């Protein structure tokens, strides 16, 4: 069963949703967000290799073209760089493209348009133009995705001015942030995680926005602060569930957006706990973990009562085989181990 579907499905099957309200799977929340955006605004269109597949981009776009027509929801040639520029041009000319990719790896083909064009026009054009476009992709993992199909590249892009970067971890946020991204007048990147796609959660009907640039506490505690996003944050929450029994508690902050970054919530929590662990789905080096770690050492230094720690991917390519993968990716146990070290001051 390719793409680790089995694992994702079985995990989702065991999930209980505590809050009250309508429960949706992550992927369905995304689907609903796109549906609502397409209904609301005729300027919105959805494109990408595979959006009109029977399986519809993991389910995110299934059958949308049947409802909105192939003018508004369409498959594309395999021309990621060109199409990113085409989206930027269409956005400059009054539309709101939402461009979907199966994998962030494919965005590496588009850095010229993304970094040197889409994100800079508003500035170069002295505010006279803007580029309201969304680029979405799903971080891969497992089943031999390997080094060319499971890269998480948000860290490469964090230093690019003019971009916004979103990484939800719950169905509720996935929907609200997708809608906020489509409504935003800047190029916005959304990285969802393949392994979050079947997670369930309460999702209100209708249109609502999650503010871009605002983190949220997922747990409150005393011993340390854990910050991160997306799937790795979910792992950290699982780790904290285990550690609860050992009497360890933490503020767990889901940043939800990486750029702009909610510095306030990080410093607020750090002031209390004095210790911080940063987790990310991407390389530990020079990316999200590094930025937040440095930020804290710079502006939160006097609150720090122990070394900053980070958990991301090691500085080696991602192996394809499942045995090697298990050693490669951090899991809740490895996260728990680091937390224990931090709390014991080892």
């Amino acid at each position: 069963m390719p793409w680790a579907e089995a694992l994702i499905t079985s995990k989702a099957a065991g999930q209980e949703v505590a809050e009250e309200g309508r429960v949706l799977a992550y992927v369905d929340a995304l689907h609903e967000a796109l549906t609502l955006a397409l209904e609301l605004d005729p300027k919105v269109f959805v494109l990408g290799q595979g959006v009109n597949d029977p399986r519809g981009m993991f389910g995110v776009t299934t059958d949308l073209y049947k409802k909105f027509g192939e003018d508004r929801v369409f498959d594309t040639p395999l021309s990621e760089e060109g199409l990113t520029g085409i989206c930027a041009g269409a956005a400059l000319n009054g539309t709101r493209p939402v461009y979907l990719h199966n994998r962030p790896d494919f965005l590496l083909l588009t850095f010229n348009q993304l970094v040197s064009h889409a994100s800079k026009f508003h500035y170069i054009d002295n505010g006279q133009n803007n580029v309201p476009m969304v680029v979405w992709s799903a971080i891969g993992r497992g089943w031999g995705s390997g080094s060319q199909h499971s890269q998480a590249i948000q860290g490469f892009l964090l230093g690019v001015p003019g971009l916004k970067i979103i990484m939800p971890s719950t169905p509720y946020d996935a929907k609200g942030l997708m809608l906020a991204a489509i409504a935003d007048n800047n190029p916005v990147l959304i990285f969802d995680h393949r392994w979050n796609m079947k997670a369930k959660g309460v999702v209100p009907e209708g249109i609502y926005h999650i503010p871009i640039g605002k983190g949220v506490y997922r747990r409150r505690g005393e011993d340390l602060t854990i910050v991160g996003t997306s799937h790795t944050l979910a792992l950290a929450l699982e780790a904290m569930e285990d550690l609860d029994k050992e009497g360890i508690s933490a503020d767990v902050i889901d940043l939800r957006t990486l750029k702009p970054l909610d510095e306030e919530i990080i410093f607020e929590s750090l002031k209390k706990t004095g210790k911080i662990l940063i987790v990310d789905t991407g390389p530990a080096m020079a990316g999200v973990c590094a930025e937040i770690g440095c930020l804290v050492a710079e502006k939160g230094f006097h609150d720090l009562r122990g070394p900053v720690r980070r958990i991301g991917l090691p500085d080696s390519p991602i192996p394809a085989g499942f045995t090697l993968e298990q050693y490669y990716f951090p899991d809740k146990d490895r996260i728990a181990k680091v937390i224990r070290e931090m709390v014991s001051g080892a």
Partner: protein
Amino acid sequence: MIRYPYNELEFTFSSSPDETYEADFLIGLYRSMLRIRMIQEAIESRYHEDEMKTPIHLVIGQEATSVGVCAALRTTDQVYSSHRTQGNYLAKGGSLKGMMSELYCRLNGCAGSRGGSMHLLDKSVGYAGSSAIVGGSVPIATGAAFGAQYLKKDQINVVFFGDAATEEGAIWESINFAALKSLPVLYICENNFYSVCSSMEVRQPKVDIYKKAGAFGVNSCRIDGTQVLNVYEATREAVKIARSGGGPTFIESVAYRWRGHGGAGDDSASGYRDPEEVKAWQKFCPIDGLYKDLMKKNLFDETRNSSMKKEIQDEIEEAFQHAINSPNPEEKDLSTYVYSD
């Protein structure tokens, strides 16, 4: 050695010699080319002062392409450029004062001094922008055309780029998409045989650029880019097709760059091309050519020519003064417009 002789070129499209034009229209084309030339020369003559702190890419010798194309467009049609912006911008009607202020890096430059010569902008006349990354604006213009089609705007989008831009893959990605969707976009490839100092020989095998575009499924032709009427007619044809939903056209317009790739003056002495080649092409001056035609047809005379030049000269002087007397940006202007509200 003359590597690229004019008379060895084959063109696939030319204006019909029987076509008659209003005198005013022809004089307008002449004026527009002359004006661009004079502006370019004025910039060139003051560039050594080091006050225009921006890389310039002069269009002297290639004016007919800018002027011929833009003459076939409406104000509401949009033009995008590469780094070699100035001719395109002026032909589309971009504000000269705005441009000069931009070259002088002033606050009231057409891009507020964030862009410089490679990023001119005048939305009011449909000059939509440019990229300093070779080939970078081709996908953008293609997307603008998609936007126009999607929103059912009656609008053509046009992108100018050089021969070297056709070596960038994203151009072919764009052309494929434009052909697939029958987009109202015009690809104007200004083939001047050189990319900085690299001749076509070291960059492309002996094939015709416009034929590549043809194989990708778009109408395409090669025209004499020293003849403004050829450019105009080829564009008019392309515009007609695009407006009636017939999709994109690729026009390879061949004309020679008389000056160096960037900066002021010719740099042929450095050895990458033969100064004789430059001289040979200067015989095919788009402006002189049309001037002689006008004179032959008695549509114009020396007195009108002199007063036209005087008028343009005054306009240029005024624009320079405007720029030089305009304020520089301040520190607070640095961080505006990183994000749009």
